[in-house]
């Protein structure tokens, strides 16, 4: 009978749900511990790194030689300084607090996302535009993910506009097409370096913030 079948399905679903391991976690008001978010953010940086390899390959081919040559290393001109640099003194990096470490990542990717979006509006081929749009969406996801980790650990998000309108004031757009190509090259290089660095940042954070510890912290605050 139809009603009998519905009851059967309902009972089965209940049993299935009750057996899900995630269910106990739902007792906390935070569904995922910060530890799990950190792991997800780490995974996202690895995924983006992989995506970037294809995007950069396509984009550098569009710029043409020598930009797509493996040993290409042009001077980093003054105007390229507007892109936040990932390279930092090792001792300085080790000594970063969790908050500072996360904030540096958050700020960097927000800025990089902004510049990438400007790029998206200018490139010629449909294939490139498509790849760039896809990458920007993923990068946006990373920014949100980092923000999520910061919130779950109780840190405030970095102040100031996450997305400066059209480049920071005082740094004009490249005055000629060749210099713009160099800027684009450095943008991609910096993105690559940041993704390498973030993997290390989040690995470090993973060790310092295991899931169990976070849950206790949350309960103590009466969440």
């Amino acid at each position, binding site marked *: 009978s139809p009603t009998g079948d519905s009851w059967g399905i309902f009972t089965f679903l209940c049993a299935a749900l009750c057996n899900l391991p995630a269910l106990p976690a739902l007792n906390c008001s935070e569904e995922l511990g910060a530890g799990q978010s950190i792991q997800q953010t780490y995974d996202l940086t690895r995924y983006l790194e992989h995506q970037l390899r294809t995007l950069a390959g396509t984009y550098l081919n569009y710029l*043409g030689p020598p930009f797509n040559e493996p040993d290409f290393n042009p001077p980093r001109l003054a105007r390229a300084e507007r892109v936040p640099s990932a390279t930092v003194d090792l001792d300085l990096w080790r000594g970063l607090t969790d908050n500072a470490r996360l904030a540096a990542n958050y700020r960097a990717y927000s800025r990089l996302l902004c510049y990438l979006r400007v790029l998206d509006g200018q490139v010629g081929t449909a294939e490139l535009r498509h790849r760039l749009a896809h990458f920007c969406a993923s990068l946006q996801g990373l920014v949100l993910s980092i923000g999520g980790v910061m919130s779950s650990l109780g840190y405030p998000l970095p102040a100031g506009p996450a997305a400066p309108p059209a480049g920071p004031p005082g740094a004009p757009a490249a005055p000629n097409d*060749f210099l713009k190509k160099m800027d684009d090259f450095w943008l991609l290089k910096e993105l690559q370096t940041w993704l390498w660095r973030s993997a290390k940042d989040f690995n470090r954070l993973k060790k310092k913030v295991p899931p169990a510890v976070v849950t206790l912290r949350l309960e103590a605050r009466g969440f």
Partner: protein
Amino acid sequence: PAADPAVISPQDPTLLIGSSLVATCTVSPDFPLKAEDLYWTLNGRRLPAASYATLGPSTLSVALAHLNGSRQQSGDNLVCHSRDGGILAGSCLYVGLPPEKPVNITCWSKNMKDLTCKWAPGTEGETFLHTNYTLKYKRRWYGQDNTCQEYHTAGTYSCHIPKDLALFTPYEIWVEASNRLGVAVSDVVMLDILDVVTTDPPSDVHVSRVGDLEDQLSVRWSSPPALKDFLFQAKYQIQYRVEDSSEWKVVDDVGNQTSCRLAGLRPGTVYFVQVRCNPFSIYGSKKAGIWSDWSNPTAASTPRSERAAGGCDPKGGEQNTTLRRELKQFFGWVKKHAYGCSNLGIKLYDQWRVWLQKSHKTRNQVGKEP
């Protein structure tokens, strides 16, 4: 901010294929480099020193002749280097041809609600430089030009106009192609939306066997939903092929019915069948519209022939095969020259076939009797 190490002139020029160029690299006074410390590369390849000329203590020129079209649309990279390979300055060369008039503009309207147009670029040569295409349209005796906004909906060279289209009025449509070297405008195409109407393919296409008949399949479908909304009649076309062949057979004379019987098929074979629709007599005009896409292929198989195993009764079988073939041909002819999918012709044929099979069965049984 620090000065650039050097300046190239001309900076980012646009040139015609085959033209020549003399470029100069002048080192900034802040830098301790002389003309003899410099060299040029184009797209990563070092240019021969024979083409250089020293124009001043810190100015080196290079002569480029008979330039080919740009290697990439972002421009060829002409770079001035210092002796150790460092980059001092660069200039992007855009070498190509002005666009030619886009051609072959064809448009179609889905259910009189929108208009999609596609075109072809004038020449192959339009890939050296980035070429922008703009589709424009206006109603024939009303001044205002409109620009199409949604591009690449039906391929690279296409555009879609989603709304605000008037019926019963001619439109002028054209495409403008522009790149760094110039603009080209296509010829104007004039059309009335009602003349280029197409619709969705028929839905719910079902193909089934006709009882035990080995060489027939029955095809049934629903008219596209838009048919109800506005005043057009529909005519249909069927195409079918054997599973492992790429040759489609087309049935043209289906008329406006929503069913048809395919005959003369191979027994025990899988067939793929598709149907498409043409809206005609829109608002009473005699003109045909544009054929819709084919429906998704539907598959069905004809029943397997009982005699497929081969001759249990070779002599009798042969006789019947020849007779049957002739009869089939005759009825096929009748079918064609009478009315395509006329029920009358088919029914007669069916009855004949059923009778034929029954009579063959009895003949076989007779043969088997000890």
